């Protein structure tokens, strides 16, 4: 009887042990599966954050470029900028620097983080992109005549033709002249552009933003514009020129020929009158602080290429053109009035504060002058070099 009872008692213990064993095994399997699932989850999170961090870095580059378009001096943001969107948590920091030897270049160092920039955050990932951007050049001369305030050509009974050619493909010929002889002003005042006499403008006419061409442009009964009359989307900026070349004082020629060697010159004033001839033997750039009077026999540029004779007028004294022979060159006088009373042609371009023409002079815009860069006005930033942190190590 006792033996039977003990046997039954032992059987109960065996069942308990078996249950414990099964429960333990099930728990172990569950734990293993849970751990496995958790590892997969973490790997998946890290992978997702890796992609998010990379995209954050790229967003930072885009953001910096957008800032640079409106502010070339943008230096970035060293503080973490979150860009959380739904389940994609992350942000970036970005720094923008300018190398000492090239003011047009910007180095953008963008760092992307996910879920934030705290290295102990769950599934933390970071990515970086280094890019080099360079601002394109804005042309200094993109009109035949541009004046901030007004353009007035030409006097009653006078004849003026404004057209274009390209000295890179050959000399000007009236039969092959093109219709890019554009005229522009920043002003929107009534009569900002006045075309009188028998003026023919083979090109477009552009007034400042927000203006009305029908009031800002006055076209006489015998004057013609072959292109369009429209409003500019932007205000053109023409900064005051500057040079580090020391001034050589005034240059005044009343007779004989003076030859300028290729290079940059700086004068307090420039006057060529009477029988005086100013000749350039190569590409010449002349900076003038004060008055400019070109009323003599001639100003001769090398090979009659306007790009080889550039006059930058720093001050606001009037520039007088009354030469008896053609001028091959460009005049950049953003602060001064340019008065052209001569009858000879100008092959090149003029930038002035105000342009007034009373003679029969024609302006033939040389499109090669668009290669002359406006050093103080930056264009669109463009990629020069791009490097991303890469999971495939270079060279392996």
């Amino acid at each position: 009887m006792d033996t039977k009872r003990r046997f039954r008692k032992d059987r109960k213990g065996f069942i308990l042990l078996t249950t414990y064993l099964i429960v333990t095994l099930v728990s172990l399997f569950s734990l293993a599966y849970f751990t496995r699932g958790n590892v997969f989850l973490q790997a998946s999170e890290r992978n997702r954050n890796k992609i998010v961090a990379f995209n954050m870095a790229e967003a930072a580059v885009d953001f910096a470029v957008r800032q640079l378009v409106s502010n070339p001096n943008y230096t970035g943001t060293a503080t973490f900028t979150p860009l959380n969107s739904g389940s994609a948590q992350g942000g970036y920091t970005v720094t923008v620097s300018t190398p000492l030897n090239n003011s047009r270049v910007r180095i953008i160092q963008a760092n992307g983080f996910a879920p934030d920039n705290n290295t102990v955050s769950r599934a933390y990932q970071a990515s970086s992109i280094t890019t080099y951007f360079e601002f394109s050049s804005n042309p200094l001369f993109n009109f035949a005549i541009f004046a901030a305030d007004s353009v007035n050509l030409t006097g009653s009974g006078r004849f003026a033709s404004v057209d274009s050619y390209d000295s890179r493909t050959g000399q000007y010929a009236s039969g092959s002249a093109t219709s890019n002889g554009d005229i522009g002003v920043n002003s929107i005042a009534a009569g900002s552009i006045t075309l009188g006499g028998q003026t023919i403008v083979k090109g477009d006419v552009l007034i400042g933003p927000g203006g009305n061409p029908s009031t800002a442009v006055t076209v006489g009964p015998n004057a013609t514009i072959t292109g369009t009359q429209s409003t500019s989307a932007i205000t053109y900026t023409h900064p005051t020129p500057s040079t580090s070349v020391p001034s050589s004082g005034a240059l005044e020629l009343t007779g004989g020929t003076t030859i300028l060697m290729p290079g940059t010159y700086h004068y307090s004033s420039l006057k060529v009158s009477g029988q005086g001839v100013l000749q350039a033997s190569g590409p010449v750039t002349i900076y003038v602080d004060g008055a400019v009077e070109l009323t003599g026999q001639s100003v001769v540029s090398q090979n009659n290429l306007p790009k080889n004779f550039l006059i930058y007028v720093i001050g606001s004294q009037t520039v007088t053109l009354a030469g008896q022979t053609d001028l091959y060159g460009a005049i950049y006088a953003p602060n001064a009035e340019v008065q052209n009373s001569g009858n000879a042609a100008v092959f090149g371009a003029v930038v002035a504060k105000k342009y007034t023409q009373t003679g029969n002079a024609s302006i033939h815009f040389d499109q090669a002058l668009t290669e002359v860069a406006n050093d103080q006005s930056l264009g669109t930033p463009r990629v020069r070099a791009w490097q991303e942190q890469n999971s495939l190590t270079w060279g392996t």
Partner: protein
Amino acid sequence: MKILGKKGAKGFTVSELMIVVGLSSVVFMGVLAILRVGTEQSQLSQTKMLLQDTAREALYKMVQEIRQSAPSRITIAGNSASIQFAVPDPASLVSTTSYTVNWTGAHQIQYALGGAGNRQILRTDLATNRTSVLANDVTALQFTGDAAQPNVVTITISAQRNLTSGRPVPSAPLQLTAQAEVRNP
């Protein structure tokens, strides 16, 4: 009476046992068949998932690396099955005078099918002649350029794996496509 009854209890007849064994076998085989179908379905889903992950990861890596190159430094083979491109040295990305990419020290990288059964994407650094495997079970690899958009390279991967039963998964190769927009000028 009670004791006698227990002693006199008869066993199963052979026919009864055969019927029981027969029925049990049928049930057992049914269970096995169900289990086998379940296992294969699970294997099928896992294989599809794995193939997708592998192909996606390989595409991601290739896109990331091709982006470092430049349109003029990419050559796609005539049969579109391989690509060679230059990747600049990360330690000397640009010339510090011109701020243009320094291609002189660049490495030439190649992606092509090869390896076991010609079903692996191999990445070869032609400068060091080192090769690594980016993905397995790839049945086709295709690179295409676009004359209108020379900075864009389209990569298409087809992947398929044979199960232990010999069944190909998926029945038609899984195809994934990605585009790499080359970043350097």
